[in-house]
């Protein structure tokens, strides 16, 4: 079960207290009755001892007039206790044996439950006497009920109090962990946003966790910085020579004495250089996006970016007599996006849809909310389609298809860039294609 540590501890604590309470409720009543009964029995034994010693001192005759065969009975005021001495036939009982049992007895006009000690005195002269000492069970029961209730209340209140104090204490104890998660882990998407400020705590485990975490984050950050620096140096080293050549070719083309043959060669070299330049720039763009060199701090409307892209591309659509159908139902606003990159992404998808479409074909742009949440933006062309075996390689960087495949020249650099930008925005770029019918590139924003 997925829960926070604090919640788990509180839950465990409450459950264990509940278990304790249940055990208490089960165990306390029998124990209390046992104790009360034991206590009563002990008192009965003590009373028997007193009565016997009185008999020894004063002789049985002080209590019973033997000749009349009468029962001696003594009750206290409220009839809670009684003592009787009854002459019995010798055979009916076993002398010298003490028995204790519960039984009903009628005292005056009331029948009550009594705890009774019965003892047959050993032969004293001609007669045998039976001693009975009773203690009313009503008093014992009252006592046990009170005891039981008190014990249970103490238990319940104690349990509630400890649950509360324990929860408060764990809350206090786990505060450094909460802060660690809040300040250092949650919402930190990128090494440049790491925080190394130590979390205040005197719990050594948390301190160790915090220090190790900070150390690892520093390592990641430094590796990241190195990579960023490397990319920066590489771009400088690669783009500077390209820059020199580009300027040189431009200057050479301005030279009035340049003959036609050389002019053509320079234009050709310029083409080659542009290819190199675009390859390098694409690599750098992808690397920079993957290194999180771009911000995602704008909320961007898909319709607005799409309008910009279509505005840029309207001449190309017109040139190839392609109809463009736009159905955004509804528009979607990406909360954290980079508008420039989104422009590049949609530009690449739509310019591909123009480039690889048939003359006079259609492009359908559909946007709709996904039932599982998020948004789906699909760009569908009516071009020749892409052969199934080529689809897995569409997004491979710098891979070109073999000539003669379903795709005319290969999709070039546009798609790897599009995919990288989609991932930067936590979106998936999916392709569906039917040879002879067309291709759909769908952006699935979550």
């Amino acid at each position, binding site marked *: 079960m997925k829960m926070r540590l604090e919640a788990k501890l509180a839950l465990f604590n409450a459950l264990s207290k509940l278990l304790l309470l249940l055990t208490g409720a089960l165990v306390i009543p029998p124990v209390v009755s046992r104790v009360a009964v034991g206590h009563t029995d002990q008192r009965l034994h003590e009373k028997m001892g007193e009565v016997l010693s009185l008999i020894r001192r004063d002789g049985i005759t002080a209590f019973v007039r033997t000749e009349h065969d009468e029962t001696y009975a003594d009750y206290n005021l409220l009839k809670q206790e009684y003592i009787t001495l009854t002459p019995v036939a010798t055979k009916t009982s076993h002398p010298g044996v003490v028995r204790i049992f519960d039984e009903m007895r009628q005292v005056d006009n009331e029948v009550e439950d009594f705890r009774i000690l019965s003892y047959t005195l050993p032969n004293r002269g001609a007669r045998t006497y039976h001693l009975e000492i009773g203690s009313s069970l009503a008093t014992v029961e009252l006592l046990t009920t009170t005891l039981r209730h008190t014990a249970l209340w103490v238990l319940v209140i104690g349990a509630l109090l400890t649950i509360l104090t324990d929860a408060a204490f764990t809350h206090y104890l786990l505060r450094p962990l909460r802060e660690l998660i809040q300040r250092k882990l949650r919402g930190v998407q990128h090494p440049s946003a790491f925080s190394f400020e130590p979390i205040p705590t005197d719990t050594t485990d948390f301190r160790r966790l915090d220090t190790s975490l900070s150390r690892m984050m520093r390592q990641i950050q430094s590796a990241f910085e190195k990579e960023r620096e490397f990319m920066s140096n590489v771009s400088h080293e690669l783009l500077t020579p390209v820059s020199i050549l580009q300027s040189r070719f431009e200057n050479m083309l301005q030279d009035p004495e340049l003959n036609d043959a050389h002019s053509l060669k320079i234009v050709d070299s310029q083409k080659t250089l542009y290819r190199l330049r675009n390859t390098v720039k694409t690599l750098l763009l992808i690397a920079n996006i993957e290194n999180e060199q771009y911000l995602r701090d704008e909320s961007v409307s898909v319709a607005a970016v799409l309008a910009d892209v279509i505005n840029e591309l309207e001449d190309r659509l017109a*040139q190839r007599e392609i109809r463009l159908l736009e159905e955004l139902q509804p528009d979607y606003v990406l909360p954290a996006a980079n508008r420039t990159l989104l422009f*590049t992404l949609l530009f690449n998808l739509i310019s591909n849809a123009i480039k690889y479409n048939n003359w006079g074909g259609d492009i359908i742009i559909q946007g709709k909310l996904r039932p599982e949440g998020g948004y789906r933006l699909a760009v569908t062309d009516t071009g020749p389609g892409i052969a199934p075996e080529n689809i897995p390689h569409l997004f491979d960087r710098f891979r070109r298809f073999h000539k003669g495949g379903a795709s005319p020249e290969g999709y070039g650099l546009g798609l790897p860039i599009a995919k990288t930008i989609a991932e930067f925005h936590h979106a998936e770029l999916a392709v569906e294609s039917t040879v002879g019918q067309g291709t759909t590139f769908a952006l699935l924003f979550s």
Partner: protein
Amino acid sequence: MHVLIVEDERSLHQEVRQFLLQAQYLCDSAFTFAEASEKIFVNSYDFVLLDLGLPDGDGLQLLREAKQNERQEASFIVLTARGAIDDRIKGLDLGADDYLPKPFSLLELLSRMQAITRLKFGLKRQEMVFGNGFHLDVTGRTLRYEGAEVPLTKKEFDLLHYLLLHKNRVLTRLQLGEHLWGNVLEDDSDSNYIDVHIKNIRKKLGHFAPADFLETVRGIGYRVSEQLSN
């Protein structure tokens, strides 16, 4: 117009210098941070072309220092091959007037410099007159022939404007393409979009007057050859 070129890469420095000299600019050179810092302090320039990656200091620092001087009137164009986006933002925030990522086209550099000059001297309404009666209104983005509007698309207008800016020069398809689609990376160098644009422009202009000033230079590109009066 007096330009200081701050660039440590000698070959590139040389090419930029040669190009600007041909375009009638006076050029001064600095190859290091120290040299540039001193020259900016002592002389007065209209433009400083500033490379950020100097061997002995950060170009941005130079920009910061220069902008603190209130008498500084030069316009700064930042040139960099670092390519990182944060440089771009920093450069613009610190008062650079424009920014060109390397590699850049010299023609693009020149047209940016001309745009800055126009802004600086408050030329609010700029018109180019060409082809015996065509008026290109750069601010209003319209083309007229004797009062009648010639309908051009956005890209056609940009293309014609760029050719007119660099009149009497041959512009290759790549240079034109880079100007039109500069922000987008494409490996589409063989595409004929530019040719179609030119064909359409010719057709549209041809309704009003012969458009033979818009020449095709076979295998190379296009050129507007004429004496223009602004």
